[in-house]
C-alpha cells in the first residue's frame, strides 16, 4: 500500500511539474488591467486595489469565513482542561508583554496605513494585532467581563457589517454592490480596512482563546 501510494504521489508531482513547465514563460496575467485602473481604485498598492476594490467581494466573503470559523469554534464548547489553563506568567513573559503589546499595536497601525501604497494592509495589520492579543492572553490577561457579551460580539462583526453596509449603500445610488465612486474610494477603503483590522485582530485572538468567553465565565 505504502509503495503504491508513493508511486501515485510521485506520478502526481511529476504530472503537475510537467504541467507547470509547459506554461508559457511570459504572461502578464491581469496586471495590464490592474495598472490601467489603479488611478480610479483609490489606492496605489495594486495588491490592496485587488483585495479591496477589484475583487473586494472575495475579501468580503473571506471576512465571513473568519467569523464563521470563530462561530464554529465557539459552538464546539469549552475544550479547556486543567493543564491548558495558563498558570501565573513568569516575570519575563509579563514584562515582555508589557513592552511588546504597545509596539505591536503601533506596528499594526503602520501596516494598515501603509497598505494603501506599499505592501501591507488589513490582514497583515490584523495578524499583528492578533499576535498582540495572543501575547496578552498568554500573559494571563482576560477581557473585562462587562465587555464579554454584546460589545465583544459587535467588535467581531464590525468589519464584515461595515463592509456590507458600505457596499449596500451604493447599491441605492444606481451602482452595483461594492462599487465605490472613484472620488471616495480611498476614504472608504481606509474605513473598511480600519474596522476590518480591528475585527480580524480580535477574531484571531478569540480563536486562540478557544471557547466563547461569555460561556467560560459561567
Amino acid at each position: 500500500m505504502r509503495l503504491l501510494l508513493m508511486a501515485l504521489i510521485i506520478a502526481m508531482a511529476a504530472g503537475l511539474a510537467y504541467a507547470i513547465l509547459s506554461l508559457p514563460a511570459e504572461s502578464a496575467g491581469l496586471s495590464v488591467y490592474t495598472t490601467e485602473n489603479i488611478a480610479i481604485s483609490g489606492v496605489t498598492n495594486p495588491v490592496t486595489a485587488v483585495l479591496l476594490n477589484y475583487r473586494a467581494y472575495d475579501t468580503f466573503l473571506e471576512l465571513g469565513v473568519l467569523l464563521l470559523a470563530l462561530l464554529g469554534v465557539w459552538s464546539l464548547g469549552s475544550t479547556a482542561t486543567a493543564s491548558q489553563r495558563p498558570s501565573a506568567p513568569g516575570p519575563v513573559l509579563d514584562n515582555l508583554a508589557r513592552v511588546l503589546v504597545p509596539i505591536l499595536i503601533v506596528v499594526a497601525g503602520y501596516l494598515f496605513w501603509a497598505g494603501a501604497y506599499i505592501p501591507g494592509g488589513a490582514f497583515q495589520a490584523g495578524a499583528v494585532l492578533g499576535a498582540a492579543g495572543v501575547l496578552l492572553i498568554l500573559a494571563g490577561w482576560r477581557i473585562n467581563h462587562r465587555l464579554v457579551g454584546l460589545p465583544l460580539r459587535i467588535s467581531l462583526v464590525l468589519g464584515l457589517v461595515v463592509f456590507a453596509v458600505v457596499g449596500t449603500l451604493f447599491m441605492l445610488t444606481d451602482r452595483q454592490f461594492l462599487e465605490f465612486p472613484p472620488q471616495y474610494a480611498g476614504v472608504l477603503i481606509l474605513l473598511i480596512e480600519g474596522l476590518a483590522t480591528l475585527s480580524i485582530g480580535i477574531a484571531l485572538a478569540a480563536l486562540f482563546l478557544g471557547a466563547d468567553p461569555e460561556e467560560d465565565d459561567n
Partner: protein
Amino acid sequence: MNDILWNLLLLSVPGLPLLLAFPPLHSRLPWFRYLAVTPAIIVALMSMTYSIELSWLLFGIGLGIDGQAQLLLGVSALLWIAVATLFSRKTSNSKAVNNLISSLFMLTMAGSFGAILATDLVGFFVFSTLMGYGFYGLLIAGDDLHHQTRRAARIYLVAMIIADVMLFEVLLITALVTENMSFAMAHQGIAQSDYLTLYLWLVVFGFALKAGIWPLHFWLIAVYRHLGSAMAILLCGVPVIIALLGMLRWLPLGETSSITTGVTLQGIGLIGLLYTCFLIFFEWLKNRSFTMITVYTMLLASGLFIIAIGTGLTDATTWIRYENSVYYFIALLSLALAILLALTIRLQQHHTTTTATQVDDNTAMWFERWPATAVAWAGNIGSHTLPEWRSGWLAKVNHLGLLVCVWKRSLAANERNLQGWTVAITLFLTLAAIITLLLIFH
C-alpha cells in the same frame, strides 16, 4: 434469411403454442412449455422488420414484427418462461386436470404472442379474445377451488364479455369506414370519418375494462386477492399489458387530435392516480399486504398510461416524440411488476406456512433475505425441471447459501475497508491519475 423461413418462423410464434395445446402432443413432449416459447425468443432476438399477410385466415390477418413488437415479445417470452417454471410445480394429481391446464396455458400463450404480432384490428381482436378466455380457463381450472376464486373469475368473465362486445362494435364501425383493416389504414379512415369520437371512446372503454384501469379496476382487485404467484404474474404481465398495448395500437395516436377526449382522459387518469395513492396509503396503515400494494402500483402505472394516452390525443406532435418510450414503459412495467410479485407472493406464502403467529412481525424481513430467496428460487427451478439432478442441485444450493453469507460479510468488510483513511485517499489519488490519463489520451 429467406422469406419462407421467416414466414414459418413468424407463424410459429403463435402457431407452435396453438399446436401444442392439443393434449396428445404436449403430453408426450418433455419441457413442452419451454419449447412453445422458443420461436418467440428467436424472433425477439432477430433484429428485422418483417410482416406477412394471411389472407386465407378469417377476413385476412396480418402478422408483423418491428422494434416495438420485438421488445414486447421478448419481455413477454421471459414472463412466460418464468410462469412456466412456476406452473410446473403446481400440477394436480389428476392427469386429466393436468392436461386441461396445459392446454389452456398454451392457448393463452398463443393468444398473447399473436396479439403482440398482429398488424390489424381483426387479428388483434381474435388473438386477444383467445388469450382472455384462455386465461379465464386457467383461473377456474384445478380441483380445489375456493368459492371466492370462482366468484372473482365470474366477475372477470363478465368484464371480458362486455369489453369484447364493445371492441366488436369498433370492428364493425371500422369495417363500415374502410376496406382495409390494418392498423395504419384503419387509423387513416377513422380519423376522417364522423365516427371518430365514438370510436375513440369505445376503444378506450373496452381496453380500459380489460386492463382494469380506474374506475374500471374493480374486477382486477377482486381477482387478485385470490391468486397464486404464477397466476398473479400472468395476470399482470399478460392480459393487462396486452390490453394496454391494444389501446396503443387501436387508437389513431399521433395522426389526429381530439382535444376534448384527450383532456377528459387526462383528468380521469389524474383522479385515478390520486385515488390509488390513497389506496396505497390505507393499505399500508391497515393490512400491509405487499401483494395488494403491488397491484395498486400497477393501477398507478396504468393511470399514468391513461394520462399519456390523453396527452397523445390532445397533441399529436408530442406523441410522435414520446411514442417509443411508452412502449418501453409497458415492457419494463410488466417485467418489474412480475419480479416484485414473484418475490412478494412467494415470500408471504413462505411466512404463512412457517409460523402463522409470526407473520405480522416478520413480513418486512424478507427484503433482507432476498439473496437467499433468489437462490432458493433458482433451486426450485432446477429441481423441478431436471428432477434427476435434484440432489446435485440441493448440494449446490446449500453451497450457494453459504456463499451468500460470505458475500454479505465480505460486502460489509469491503465497506469498512473503503472507509479506512489510507485506502480511501489512495483510491482518490488513483482516480485522479486515471482521470488525468484519460484526458491526456483522449
